[in-house]
């Protein structure tokens, strides 16, 4: 094995290097000018994101423990883009007095979690997968508690770490059952040896529950709202978009490649949990006043829709999920970006506070509207095409009832998304949020989100590329 074969792990190697460079920079940077670290890290990560798109060798190393393929590279690149947007959005927030000290910490931890996600996506073996998943979640718990002097933030951190410990335990238990019945942890070998015995199905369900926790699928979602609300907005957006996206990707890969034998079982499982997730996510979202909690529940119901792409086990399904996540990255980060900008500038996070926002901050309102339209799936923005493809994928395999329920839920979701739009455009307020100018990095990030929302909808080439890289069971 020559050193060159390590280049297959290019994404991970680059990210680890970046993390180390940030660490070194922290040690030697002039303490008076700590702000510079954030720009340094941002540029570093921007370069990595671009390098990620260069053609890369495919194949597997370490005896199949680590696999790289076009699909997986595409997923990693999507995560990179999302993380880049989160980074750009964070710059202004990191300049605040209380955060300047912890700038390098922020980048170091986030990049580490990204390394974990990349390993998880590229896993060809349950152990690598497990290590990746732990690496992806533990640093985020630290970040959730980033505002450590705020009780809510600390609470978010501890809740995330405890509940993820529980879910990891269950997940590991499931993996151990799989190992016990097949005698191997390599994905391809498990797939070949997997049968339909009760113990194996139990193992699968434990595994699935563990993953469902990461994607916050009902009934494993309860941590979501508290953690999202308590964490700093930028971390919340990272959690809701990047973490969730990565987990969806790997769950889909594992379902399609490791468990095709019990497709009937996991289709039923997904059916049940996706109906629950969409419905309950929506029911709770309607009641929320705090925008972060609101977006938390909206992202729960979004996860329910995403499952529709998985259920068929078809190529179109995989393509539609990857496409949807891409769109979701732009839309959700757009929405969170506006919430973050307002929260950082004015400290207001409630829907009522947004009354009359259009008259004071028309641009932010328009961005928010577009992002919410995309989340709700209103044509012609990208979210519509995303949902359309998801539903088509499920309908192609005959899950008409599920599609029908999903459409009903879309209508319900339209109601609460439009509530926010109504607040901004129609409702009057005596004390509206004053007009303010957001900093340049926020504006750049929101610009990227808007461009993404519009362009991914219209440029059919994107979906074509994704479709050609996708595969079915």
């Amino acid at each position, binding site marked *: 094995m020559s050193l060159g074969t390590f280049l297959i792990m290019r994404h991970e190697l680059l990210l680890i290097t970046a993390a180390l460079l940030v660490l070194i920079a922290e040690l030697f940077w002039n303490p008076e000018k700590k702000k510079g670290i954030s720009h340094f890290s941002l540029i570093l990560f921007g370069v990595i994101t671009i390098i990620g798109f260069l053609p890369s060798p495919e194949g597997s190393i370490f005896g199949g423990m680590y696999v790289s393929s076009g699909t997986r590279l595409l997923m990693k690149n999507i995560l990179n883009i999302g993380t880049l947007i989160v980074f750009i959005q964070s710059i202004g927030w990191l300049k605040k007095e209380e955060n300047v000290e912890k700038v390098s910490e922020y980048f170091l931890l986030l990049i580490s979690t990204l390394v974990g996600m990349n390993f998880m996506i590229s896993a060809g073996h349950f152990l690598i997968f497990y290590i990746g998943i732990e690496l992806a979640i533990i640093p985020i718990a630290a970040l959730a508690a980033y505002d450590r002097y705020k009780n809510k933030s600390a609470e978010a951190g501890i*809740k995330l770490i*405890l*509940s993820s410990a*529980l*879910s990891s335990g*269950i997940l590991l238990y499931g993996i151990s059952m799989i190992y016990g019945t097949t005698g191997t942890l390599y994905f391809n070998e498990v797939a070949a040896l997997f049968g339909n015995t*009760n113990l194996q*199905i*139990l193992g699968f*369900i*434990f595994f*699935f*529950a563990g993953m469902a*926790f990461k994607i916050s699928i009902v*009934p*494993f979602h*309860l*941590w979501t*709202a*508290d953690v999202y609300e308590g964490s700093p907005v930028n971390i919340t957006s990272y959690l809701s978009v990047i973490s969730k996206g990565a987990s969806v990707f790997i769950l889909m890969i594992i379902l399609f490649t490791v468990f095709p034998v019990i497709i009937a*079982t996991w289709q*039923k*499982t997904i059916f*049940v*949990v996706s109906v629950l997730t969409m419905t*309950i996510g929506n*029911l*709770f979202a*309607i*009641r929320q006043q705090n925008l972060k909690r609101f977006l938390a529940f909206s992202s729960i119901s979004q996860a329910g829709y995403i499952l529709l792409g998985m259920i068929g086990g078809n190529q179109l399904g995989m393509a539609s999920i990857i496409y949807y996540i891409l769109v979701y990255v732009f839309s959700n980060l757009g929405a969170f970006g506006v919430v973050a900008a307002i929260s950082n500038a004015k400290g207001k996070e409630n829907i009522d506070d947004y009354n009359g926002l259009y008259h004071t901050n028309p641009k932010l309102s328009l961005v928010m509207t577009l992002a919410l339209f995309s989340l709700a799936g209103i044509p012609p923005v990208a979210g519509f095409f995303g949902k359309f493809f998801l539903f*088509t994928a499920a309908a192609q395999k005959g899950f008409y009832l599920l599609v029908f329920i999903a459409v009903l839920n879309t209508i319900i979701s339209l109601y609460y998304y439009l509530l926010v739009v109504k607040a901004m455009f129609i409702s009057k307020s005596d004390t509206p949020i004053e007009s303010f100018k957001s900093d340049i990095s926020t504006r750049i990030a929101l610009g990227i989100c808007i461009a993404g929302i519009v362009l991914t909808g219209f440029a*059919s080439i994107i*979906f*074509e590329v994704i479709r050609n890289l996708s595969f079915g069971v």
Partner: protein
Amino acid sequence: MINFSYTIWILILPFFMFLLLGLAGHKLFKAKLSGLLGTGGLGIITILSYITAYRYFFVTGKIEGAFQKITAVNITWLQFTDKLHIDMGVLLDPISVMMLVVITTVSLMVHIYSLGYMKGEKGFERFFSFLSLFSFSMLGLVLATNIFQMYIFWELVGVSSFLLIGFYYQKPSAVRASKKAFIVTRFADLGFLIGILILSFNTKTFDFITLTNPTGTAILQGTGIGFLGLSIMTWSMIFVFMGGVGKSAMFPFHIWLPDAMEGPTPVSALIHAATMVVAGVYLVARMFPIYAISAPVALHVVAYVGAFSSLFAAIIACTQTDIKRVLAYSTMSQIGMMMCALGVASYGGEEGLGYMASMFHLFTHAMFKALLFLGAGAIIHAVHSNYMTDMGGLRKYLPITHITFLIACLTIAGIPPFSAFFSKDEILTAAFHSNKILFGVEYAVAGLTAFYMFRLYFNIFWGKDTQYHHTPHEAPATMTIPLILLAIASLFTGFIPFNKLVTSDSKVLESGLEMMIAIPSVLIGLLGIGIAYVMYRKETSIPDRLATTFKYGYKWAYNKFYIDELYLFVTKKIIFRYIAQPVAWFDRHIVDGTMNAIATVTQVISFRIRGFQSGQLQKYAFVFITGVIMLAIFFIYLWK
């Protein structure tokens, strides 16, 4: 074979102009500069179109004596499945290239004219950005390679028309008119969409070349299966035609066109006279092989709707006093003639004369009707009124407008050697050879046309000497130059050999003037002019006496046969009361009631399940574990 792929710029450029002027116009440029930019951009497109037309018609388009359909550009836009995909592209064939010339020429004239007409108006950049949007949509419509693309641009045209009619959005009447135009055409477009869906479901394709190939298989799909006595193909084509009826303001969807005159006059010239309103004719021409070969009944519908509309509108036009409305009804009448000509044609050879005549008339009509509207604009600009009762004796003050307007009136009256003489003659010939009743109608319309146009002319430029508050003065050069250019076009476009260029089967069609038709048609034109001369040359009491004699007929026609009132009656008194109100009741009590019930249940449930979201981690863990166990029990014991 010349590569035509550059034609994509004909679409990209105006769209870019729209974005530039619309988004950044008022910030980046002064008003005048944005006008010049818009006009310049359109100038480039016009040149490109002329080059395309020259190369298509005279260099490469023809293979073995017939013009080919060339797909210059094609991009797959949405790929749903392997077979079902929606494309965007540029299709060149005789009619689309002809329309390119028409649209860009008129649009360029209107752009130049608007530089003068709209000078100093608030929203000057907005006006030019909307004009660019319209040009983009209209060009996209005619260049569409498939019916779905056409539909998309069709709607875009509707939107830009809506925006331009409502340009003076402070005026309630303009807002009402724009809404009316949008809703009426949108309603008709519903039929178009249904037609498209039936058609493509039947033929499994959207593509025009496949659809309209006269020897292909698609054209024969669904001709046998019947529904209510007509084949499926016929039904779909009737529905498609419904879209055309709406856009082209044919009876009974014509009610929006007179109101649309609330928009700025250059807009009326461009959209509501020369380009958008002929989209319906273009649509039928585009699908003509299907109409002619597999849905002749639908083609009859086209003929009769067209003929009826032309007569109907001509009668109303004789009684109106708002000069723009007269022109609006005249447009409707002329388009009716085009429709009728299409309707009496059949595919290929001698029988295809009506098709050629219709396209010919479309072309000449675009020129002289744009001229009439722009002239009317110059007049309104000078006297600040739309009503011919406020005018009279204007020939002294507006010499250039007077001459060009006279040329246009002579043209529309069908006097040789002006262009409409030739095209109208072809229409009458085609009608004569296929259906004597329709011929009679069109012949009468020709006489009425000459009458009402000269009624307008004499009332404005001769008649009584009106005292004006301030002396009317001739329009600036930016406005008169387009008038002169269009007048020249009206003079000479009649000599274009359309029978060699645009025919139903793209082959040369031998046709010439038939004296038997030409002489009577000129005579009735002269008769119309003569009557108008007697009645309106000087102020006389003849018109009033006539109006009192035929009191009811006059009043009926003056009020446009009460079609608007009929619609109001049907919508307000019948649909609102007997359909909408019960539906509203159902909606309020049953639907809302159900929804409220669901909402209440939701509230109760979410109140009950609030406990789950208690914030206590141990409870979360409890739910988590319960969930796992439930799933396990479920899938291992109950539902395996």
